Structures are given as C-alpha cells and as structure tokens.
C-alpha cells in the first residue's frame, strides 16, 4: 500500500513539473504591459473569419420571434426599411429616406435606388408588401405592430406609406423587420439584402456566409467568408479560441481574459463593451415577504452591486438602478442608479419595520447554464446573510426556468438579464400591471398611468421624461434589485480588427476586417 502511494506521489510530481514547466514558458512570452488599447490599423479586403457562439441558432427565419443569439447572427443577413446603427439610432437601409409627419401617424419611405437582394434580384414594393404581411402574421393579431397599423399603401413605384391608427413615435423601430423576396420561405432559402448571404447551414454545427456582392454600402463588407460556429460548451469554445480554430468569442469571463493575456499576449485583442442587458435580481412582487415594499428596499440596500461588478467583471460593468440600459442615453435616467447605496444597517432597519427582524427564507432560482447568473446569485446570497436573510439557490435547466419562472411566475427571486430593442417600451412595458411579460407581477397605478402617457407622447423630449419618471418609480418602489449592464469582453484574433458594439443585439461582421499585411 505504502509503495503504491509513493508511486502515485511520484506520478503527481512529474505531472505537476510538466504543467508548471508550461506555465513558466508562458510567462516568458508575457510582455509585462497590457497591449496598447487601440492603434490605427489598415483594413484589407478578403479573408475568412470564424465567429464562435455558445448559443445555438434557433431559426434563419427573421420574422419568427427568436432569442438574442439568433438575432445577433441574422443581423448580417437581413435588413428592414430601417436598421439600428451602432450609436443606437435607426438609419435608412432598404429605404433610402423616410419622413414622419408632425402628428406621428404617417410614415413615408422611399425605396433605395437600385437596391438588390443577395441573389441579384431588385427589391420591389411587392417584396415589401409580402414581408410586411408575413411579419404581421408571425407577430399575431394582438401584437402592438398589427394593432397600430391602419393601412399600408404604395402611392407610387418607389414609395411606401404606412398609416397608423394612433400617433406613435416609437413605431419606427418596428420597421426593422426583414425585407425578403415575395413568396420566399427563409427556412428553405434564406435571402435578404444584408452584407452577407447564406451559403451553407448545418443545423447545430455552423452557418457559412459569403460576401453579398450587391450590398448597397460602399466598401463593405470586407471579409469574403464568415462562419458562425456553434460550440455548446463554454470551456470548449475557449479552448478553440486558444487553438486558433475560432477567431472571435464573446462573453469571456475575467479569468479567461487574464488567461489569454498571460498565455498569448498579442495573439488576441480584447475588445470591451457592454452586453446591453439589465442584469438584476428580479423579484416576484407578490411572493410572501417580497410583497412589502420595505422588504424589497431592504434587499436593494443589502446587495453590494460594486462588489458583484468588481468580482465578476473586473469593475467594467455599468451600475444601474432601474430597468434601462445606459446605452440608450435618450431614455436613460442616471439618477436611478444612486437611489440605493450599499447600507447593511438601513437594510436591517427596514426589515425590522416590516416585521422581519430575524430575516426570512428566500429562494433564488437561476438557470444553471449561465455561470454569470449563478455566480451573481451566490454573491448575493452571501451579502443577504449579513442582514439575516437565508438564501437557498435553486439551479434549474434553462427550459425549466422559461416554463416555471418566466411563463409560470412561480418563483421568489431570480437572477437574469433582459435585453431590449431600441424603443424604450420594449424594455419598460413589461412592468405594466396587465402586461403579458410582467414576470415581476409588478402593479403600480402611477406606473401604469405614466406608461400610457409615454406610449401616446409624440414629442421625444416629453416621451423621455415619462420613461425617466417610470425608471425612478421602479427604483423607488424597488420593483427588483437592479445591478448592472454587464461588461462584455470580446476576444478577437489580432489579425482582425473592426469589432463594433451595438446597443441592440447584433454581431456585425460587415465592419470586421483583416489587418493589411497580417
């Protein structure tokens, strides 16, 4: 027995010698300084890029409602009359120009001169009509889109006119729906006007794209071919990045960023942005103690958001205090972030007032596949124990989370991130008392009233003031414990450059290029 133990030890020693030997090898390569943040690089044309993604593509059908990962990818294939830009505005795409009348009920678009689909076929009004109807059908009879449109008409060969039943200045963001050829079924033959066209799709494996030679933006795209490769396991994806099998990977953890810098300093560039999510511990406002506003406020005081940020995101996230991302400055209310400060005593006082002097039991349900949410829940559990709240973390499969927490609203608290489109109602309407997506079971008369006013307002400034009041309302009533818009660390092989962050879900590969001479 003793002898085998000795053998085991010897084996372990050899193994560790091998491993540490490698580690010191890596150190030699380290330059000591962080790579310069950004130096001007010269773009070249051509090249092939492999973009790694840990979320599977759900569908290539742009009109079907899908998850954020899928939308980020198909962003490169399809375009609407207008499309989001990286600065958060809507810019003309299939339409060359548009006008909205004073009242906000009539939207007139002029078709872009000579714009063609990826198959070379010119875009006509018939295609617009078909896409419009298809999108309406997919959205459903009771959707905001269908309800607000009164009429679609074509005054002449180049003009599209959409008349609304009620004035709605946010409606433009709905017109990002994809324009596809008349009679086309995107599941069988995906065609759009975007910078890249589909060449091959292997479900569950990869999506191959090639340059759209008819693309209307001059000098774009740069790369000849792009592959979006699906890798279900996050660690495997990271290994593939290190091995050079994939060139770009999003959502790196801080540990992974450190590891990359150590082992391969200048082989990769790390681009920092934000995930455009409202990362929060969402609360069921009707569950037991949480129905008391003082308890919810106590939670807000007891959670140290900065600690979460520095621990999980190296302090690069933006701390928020309500349900809006700072990436949309027009609608964002910065004051909401400072409604609560980390204050254990205040939390204890509030709990005592509410009759929970000795705390209570709280279950936080988190989707197990997302380590970011699980880790956050663990930190929160630790912090809440200081005010006497005993947290149980319940990890569930993503699909179970969707069915029990999101659809069934059968939970107390959960850590998750919500994304949204460019229109503020997409972010905030879910807190309306009767909103179908009101997972928080939030009900506040003042909020409902403000929401109604905000939706009706035509003037941007007036509209923004309502949305800002709504954000303060959510913060003051502690609808949930809002934490941050998490930092997004993207690693890209350093022979490429041009990664652009969007305030919406988009991985725009049309602006990525191979650096000249590399």
């Amino acid at each position, binding site marked *: 027995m003793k002898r085998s133990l000795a053998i085991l030890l010897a084996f372990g020693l050899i193994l560790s010698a091998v491993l540490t030997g490698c580690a010191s090898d890596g150190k030699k390569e380290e330059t000591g300084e962080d790579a310069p943040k950004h130096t001007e690089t010269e773009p070249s044309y051509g090249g092939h890029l492999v973009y790694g993604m840990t979320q*599977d593509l759900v569908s290539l059908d742009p009109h079907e409602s899908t*998850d954020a990962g899928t939308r980020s990818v198909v962003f490169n294939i399809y375009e609407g009359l207008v499309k989001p830009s990286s600065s958060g505005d809507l810019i003309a795409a299939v339409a060359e120009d548009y006008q909205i009348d004073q009242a906000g009920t009539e939207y007139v678009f002029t078709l872009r001169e000579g714009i063609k689909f990826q198959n070379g076929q010119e875009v006509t009004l018939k295609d617009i009509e078909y896409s419009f109807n298809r999108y309406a059908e*997919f959205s*459903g009879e009771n959707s905001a889109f269908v309800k607000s449109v009164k009429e679609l008409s074509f005054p002449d060969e180049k003009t599209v006119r959409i008349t609304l039943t009620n004035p709605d200045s946010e409606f433009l963001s709905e017109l990002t729906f994809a324009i596809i050829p008349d009679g086309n079924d995107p599941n069988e033959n995906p065609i759009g006007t975007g910078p890249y066209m589909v060449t091959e799709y292997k479900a569950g494996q990869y999506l191959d794209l090639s340059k759209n030679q008819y693309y209307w933006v001059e000098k774009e795209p740069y790369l000849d071919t792009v592959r979006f*490769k699906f890798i279900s396991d996050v660690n495997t994806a990271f290994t*593939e990045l290190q*091995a050079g*099998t994939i060139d770009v990977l999003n959502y790196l953890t801080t540990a992974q960023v450190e590891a990359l810098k150590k082992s391969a300093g200048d082989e990769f560039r790390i681009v920092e942005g934000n995930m455009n999510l409202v990362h929060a511990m969402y609360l069921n406002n009707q569950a037991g103690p949480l129905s008391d506003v003082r308890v919810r406020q106590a939670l807000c005081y007891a959670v140290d958001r900065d600690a979460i940020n520095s621990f999980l995101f190296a302090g690069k996230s933006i701390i928020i205090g309500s349900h809006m991302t700072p990436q949309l400055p027009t609608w964002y209310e910065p004051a909401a972030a400072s409604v609560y400060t980390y204050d254990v005593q205040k939390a204890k006082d509030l709990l005592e007032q509410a009759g929970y002097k000795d705390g209570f039991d709280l279950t936080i349900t988190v989707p197990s596949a997302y380590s970011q949410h699980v880790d956050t829940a663990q930190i929160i559990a630790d912090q809440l124990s200081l005010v006497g709240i005993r947290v149980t973390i319940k990890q569930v499969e993503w*699909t*179970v989370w969707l069915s029990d927490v999101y659809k069934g609203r059968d939970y107390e608290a959960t850590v998750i991130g919500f994304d949204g489109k460019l229109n503020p109602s997409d972010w905030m309407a879910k807190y309306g008392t009767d909103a179908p997506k009101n997972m928080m079971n939030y009900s506040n008369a003042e909020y409902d009233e403000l929401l109604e006013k905000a939706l009706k307002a035509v003037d941007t400034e007036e509209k923004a003031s309502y949305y800002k009041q709504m954000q303060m309302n959510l913060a003051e009533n502690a609808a949930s414990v809002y934490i941050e818009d998490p930092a997004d660390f993207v690693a890209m092989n350093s022979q490429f450059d041009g990664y652009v962050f969007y305030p919406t879900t988009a991985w725009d590969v049309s602006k990525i290029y191979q650096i000249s001479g590399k």
Partner: protein
Amino acid sequence: MQAIVKKLFSLILTVLVISFLTFIIFSIIPGNAALAKLGVDASPEQIAAMEEKLQLNDPVIIRYGRWLFGALRGDFGESLQYSGVTVGELLGSRLPVTMVLAGISFLLIVLLSVPVALFCVKFRDRLPDRILTVLGQVMMAVPAFFLGILITYIFGLLLRAFRPGAYEGLSLRYLFFPALSIAIPKIAMTVRFLKSSVRGELSQDYVRTARAHGASEDQVLKNHVLRNALIPVITFLALVIGEILAGSIVAEQVFSVPGLGRLLITSISARDYPVVQAIVMYITTVVVSLDFLVDLLYRLVDPRLRRGG
C-alpha cells in the same frame, strides 16, 4: 431455434417499452420546445401559436401514437428546434461520426488491453504490475470530461497534434483523440477484468500440465491461457460498447465533434422530442442487439446452452 425467436421477441418489446418510457418522461418534465425556441422575447400569444404549430397541445398518448406510426414506417418526423430540418437528415449526418468514433475507441480498447493485461500477469505482484494497477485505478476514477480536457490541453494546445474544434468531415486523425479519451477508462476496466480472468485460468490443471511439458511462461500465457480467458471477456466487451456510446456523449461535447451525443444533449435542452426519441431508439437498439448477438455467440461456443434452450 425457439429460444432465439423468443429472445428476438423480447428484444423488440424492450425497444418499444423504452420508446414509450422516454416519451412519457419527456412529456412530464417542465418546459417544452416552443418555450425553448422562443425564449424571453416572445409574447404568450406567440408561444401559444408556436405550441399549436409544433402540435404540443395534443395528449401524450395521441402524440406517442403519431410518433410510433411514423417511426414504424421509418419516418421520424421533423426536428422541433431547427425549423424545416427532418430528424432523418440530422441523424444521417451525425450517425457516421459517432459510429467511427465508437469504432476507433473499441479498436483501441481491444488492441491495448490484451497486451497490457498479459504484461501485468507476467510481472504480477512486481513493480511494473503495481504501477499499472495504480495507474489503472486513477484512470477509472478520473471523470470523463476532465480526461477530455487534459487530452485537449496536452495534445491540442501544447503538442499541437490536432486543432481543438477544427473537425471536418470524418477526420480519423481528429477522432483519434476523443476516442482515446473514451477508451482510456475502458481499457483500465478491461485490463482489470482480463487480469483476473487470466489469473483464474492460471490455477487450472491444464496450465500445470503445459508447464510440466516445458512450455515457457510466454507460451503458456499466449497459447493456452489467453484463449480460455477471453471467453468471459467477450461478454464484457459487448457491454463496453454500450459504455462507449455513453462516453461519446461527453467526448463529443468536450472535443466539439458533431456526433449523436452532442445532438442528444442540445436536443434534450431544447425539448426536441422527435430527435431525442430517434437517438434513444438508436442507442437502445444497438445495446439490445449486442446482447442478443453475444447470446448467439455463447450458444456457438458452448454446446450445452444450445441443447438446453
């Protein structure tokens, strides 16, 4: 003959029962394909429409009946998670990958475990045997995914013998490494089993007779003992094939190989029951048929069973 027919009948029954059970279990667990597909951005209305489209609202029995009716005619339906892709297409591209992977693993197991076991028996209770015994125990205890990561790290990132994730079209060179990660724990198991089988044979009378005739230790092991010791091992290897299929689920995930195992995992989380059913059916059929074949083989080897049946 009658026994064989009986066995064949129970084989079919097993497959049917398992298909029913998987179907039931899958309809009991929370969540469905429509939810998994649409995520948090869909309205309840859209979710309801998708449930309708995917025919998820019908009672389980009706859905099972529909599935069974199709399956009997070789039609496994359409995948729910990937719009417009049939289960046949999905499996068609994945099946060869897993079969080749399992084949290489099996070859590695057979080719490596026999010499290693003989080596151990030859040096029994001496240092080489002890080292290998400890090593074997370590290999059996290491979790499959960790072994996979270790192999990827050493052969993929350090030695650059293959490029992790760069798998294209049935590359044997690439598949060797995941196969190795599947085979290593199984080799350790087989060696252990073979060793005890050989040692059992060594105490038989015919061995003493062979030695008395002046045969060398090598000759005794190779010519006399091995053949007899292999019979129980054949049964064991048939069981190992089932284990290889289970092991490939993990290995395919770690090495990013587009085989059945990886498809099974993504399909379970997407609640894509037609795909899950088809894969489970495939695995069940393989395992049950192997059991059947081993049974037949036994009858050939051992005449007593033939008469008794």
